[in-house]
């Protein structure tokens, strides 16, 4: 089932369930349990975007939920603010704290981030109890008036549909974000931060967005909870509740569309059922969790999807096409960068030190536009370090980098990427759990004109953007001969195809300068011939290339200029033929070039 059909059928089923449930005339108690469950589902959906897509674990979600709840409660009770503005204020305050919580991700992630969010939750809980004048202390705020909208009092039967409407909206929002450039950027950032930055994604902003989305959803339903319960106190917003939200997401299956809904429903109703067990309740709850997670390690929905994927599959054998595919209109995608008169890239006395080690030592190179400029040298000579400085991953210790005449040394890598410096990585940094097509789509992140809100509301410009980009991304896959692999998970591709995919992914940036770090490593001779043809085609489209490579034959035939590094210094620079004959270069780098290996096989090298 395609994600779209899955989404539409889930939505339809959900609606049918809600309508049937209402028609069966549930007791007040049953209605209350379901309404609370729907509210928790919305929090879980927000947390799922954060954990399952942005890869950020928050154990402070109950505090954001509580913020929305208390802000709305206080405004309604003490300032007699009506329903809609009170809810709006709850959302706004929660969103603000979402931004604040996102800030630490600049420095910490994983369990360390989880600890920070726990701390946030504990501080919040303590404030609720101790700031008695505002929060009512451990008693909380009691006697909140029912919400009213346009003169209609939101009594339970109507309020049920308000909450259900919010859940459906949250579900649609989740689907929209997941399948937009923002969702892809979140997953990309989570899977390889370096590659995301190299594709022009501001990873801090993307993480902040994920936090804000989850905070808005938590704050919204916090406020809704206030007008359902009509009193609030700290006991609904403890660390235990934050932990519960995490369980709901994990139990349902992180990153899946339906996971948070299924996980929340399971846990809510399990608790209801277990209430008869009295003192053995927590024991049974724990055992049940153990059993489910052991049997379904990817969560309920995640495991079902995984099994369906395996059983539904037929054995296929696909052949990659040769590349470059000359039928692809590359010019439309790359634009036609006008070749500037000056140098594309110049470094002046560029130096990079790590502690006492000098990785790049006063290197000055000039790269002419539209050429292939090779950097060669022994392993550890500083070639990759130089690439990392040029692409903004390292800040130079001294010296300057000039890109198209402007000093760019020290700019952030995503900013350089957007200016047109694209790169690949020595050990390939694909987004392994995304498909080949999605990998290329991430490369287009900076090429959308539509804003986040346009995307969220599916306004025409956002729809047009997505359609245009999808077509171009498929064309790029076709260009590198991987069209048939579009829906294959990137980590399943053979190494050589991963290298091609990485180049295809860099091209949406419309690179003026493309940095290739050992693109021929692991390729056979025939594949290297294809690579050479591709590089020539790219330079014809105005792309300037810096090539780090050990495959001597390739370097010598494809490069216009060769610079040789050894111990971080330039030891030779010139046209291929000039460098090839240089005695120092032969000594430091070429050796015999693999001639008469068998003859040199005597033991006793020193």
């Amino acid at each position, binding site marked *: 089932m395609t994600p779209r059909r899955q989404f539409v059928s889930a939505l339809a089923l959900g609606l049918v369930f809600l309508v049937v449930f209402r028609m069966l005339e549930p007791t007040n108690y049953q209605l209350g349990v379901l309404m609370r469950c729907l509210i928790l589902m919305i929090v879980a959906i927000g947390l799922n975007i954060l954990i399952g897509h942005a890869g950020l674990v928050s154990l402070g979600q109950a505090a954001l939920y509580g913020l929305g709840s208390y802000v709305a409660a206080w405004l309604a009770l003490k300032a007699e603010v009506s329903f809609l503005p009170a809810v709006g204020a709850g959302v706004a305050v929660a969103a603000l704290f979402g931004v604040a919580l996102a800030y630490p991700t600049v420095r910490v992630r994983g369990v360390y981030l989880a600890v920070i969010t726990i701390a946030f939750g504990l501080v919040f809980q303590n404030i609720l109890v101790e700031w008695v004048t505002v929060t009512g202390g451990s008693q909380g705020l009691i006697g909140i008036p029912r919400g009213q909208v346009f003169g209609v009092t939101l009594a339970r039967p109507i309020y049920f549909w308000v909450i259900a409407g919010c859940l459906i909206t949250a579900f649609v929002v989740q689907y929209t974000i997941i399948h937009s450039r923002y969702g892809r950027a979140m997953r990309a950032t989570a899977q390889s931060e370096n590659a995301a930055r190299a594709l022009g994604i501001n990873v801090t902003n993307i993480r902040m967005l994920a936090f804000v989305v989850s905070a808005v959803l938590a704050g919204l339903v916090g406020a809704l909870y206030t007008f359902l319960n009509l009193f609030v106190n700290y006991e609904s917003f403890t660390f235990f509740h934050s932990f519960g939200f995490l369980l709901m997401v994990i139990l349902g299956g992180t990153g899946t569309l339906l996971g948070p809904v299924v996980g929340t429903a399971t846990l809510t109703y399990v608790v209801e059922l277990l209430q008869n067990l009295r003192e053995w309740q927590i024991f049974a709850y724990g055992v049940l969790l153990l059993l489910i997670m052991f049997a379904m390690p990817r969560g309920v929905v995640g495991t079902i999807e995984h099994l369906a994927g395996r059983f539904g599959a037929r054995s296929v054998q696909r052949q990659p096409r040769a590349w470059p595919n000359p039928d692809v209109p590359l010019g439309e995608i790359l634009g036609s960068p006008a070749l500037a008169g000056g140098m594309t890239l110049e470094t002046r006395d560029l130096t990079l030190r790590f502690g006492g080690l000098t990785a790049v030592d006063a290197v000055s190179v000039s790269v002419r536009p539209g050429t292939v400029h090779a950097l060669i040298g022994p392993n550890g000579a500083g070639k990759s370090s130089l690439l990392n400085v040029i692409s903004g991953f390292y800040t130079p210790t001294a010296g300057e980098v000039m890109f198209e005449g402007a000093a760019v040394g020290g700019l952030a890598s995503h900013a350089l990427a957007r200016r047109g410096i694209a790169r690949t990585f020595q050990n390939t940094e694909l987004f392994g759990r995304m498909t080949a097509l999605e990998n290329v789509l991430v490369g287009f992140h900076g090429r959308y004109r539509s804003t986040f809100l346009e995307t969220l509301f599916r306004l025409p410009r956002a729809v047009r953007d997505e359609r245009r980009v999808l077509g171009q991304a498929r064309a790029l896959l076709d260009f590198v001969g991987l069209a048939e692999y579009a829906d294959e998970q990137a980590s399943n591709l053979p190494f050589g195809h991963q290298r091609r995919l990485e180049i295809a992914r860099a091209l949406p940036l419309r690179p003026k300068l493309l940095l290739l770090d050992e693109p021929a490593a692991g390729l056979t001779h025939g594949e290297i011939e294809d690579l050479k043809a591709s590089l020539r085609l790219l330079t014809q489209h105005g792309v300037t290339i810096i090539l780090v490579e050990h495959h001597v034959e390739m370097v010598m035939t494809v490069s216009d200029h060769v610079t040789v590094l050894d111990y971080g210094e330039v030891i030779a620079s010139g046209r291929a033929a000039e460098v090839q004959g240089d005695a120092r270069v032969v000594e430091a780098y070429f050796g015999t*070039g693999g001639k008469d290996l068998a003859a040199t096989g005597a033991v006793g090298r020193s």
Partner: protein
Amino acid sequence: MTAPLLAIVDLRVAYGRIEAVRGLDLEVGTGEFVGIIGANGAGKTSTLRAIAGVVAPAGGTINFDGRSTGGQPSHVMVARGLAMVPEGRQVFADQTVHDNLLLGAYVRMGRGATGITEDVERVLSLFPQLAERLTQQAGSLSGGEQQMLAIGRGLLSRPKLLVVDELSLGLAPKMLDLLFPVLLDLNRQGLSILLVEQMASYALQVTHRTYVMEHGRILLHGPSAILAHDARVLDSYLGRRAATNGSRA
């Protein structure tokens, strides 16, 4: 005639929908140096993964040292005498060079653990550069030094068969001049080696026999010295071939 050290019959490996190896036969005799060459996606690495027990074969049999491997997990295969030097080295980057070597001897630790110090010394005499860096973190080594370490780590399990995946990957030409002869020496001292290599020009010089893989099967095999003059090998792997687009029109 003695049974080969490694005998693979009709091996199949599949990942979900993709069938990577589709009926492969291959042998490595005791003391032999065998190479596999082939394009990306031909199924070379998948074959090695099946031999090393990293993936369970979807079909076929693998016999190692007289017994079936029967999909045994990799730690069992290492204990049985099969050492893998993985693609991309995979050294333990935040442990020292010395610890990386000792980890190679992990399967021997329980069995009296004699001779480990001597074996470390032997590796260090093979790669004197490593001796200078014994207390450094492996992640700080250059690519060539990491490859030496990966080989050394493999040797410390005292393997009967050393499996090397992409010796040349990302290494400078001069480093290859040094590493290929080391494998040759190890083989001459009696170690059986199975080498997967993209640089066919190097591989064909050092190996006794070579298998050429395409689309998950063996396309041809024979003595390396003869294959080095085979037209198909010359065309596809030794650089007498135009880019594929030349013939596509």
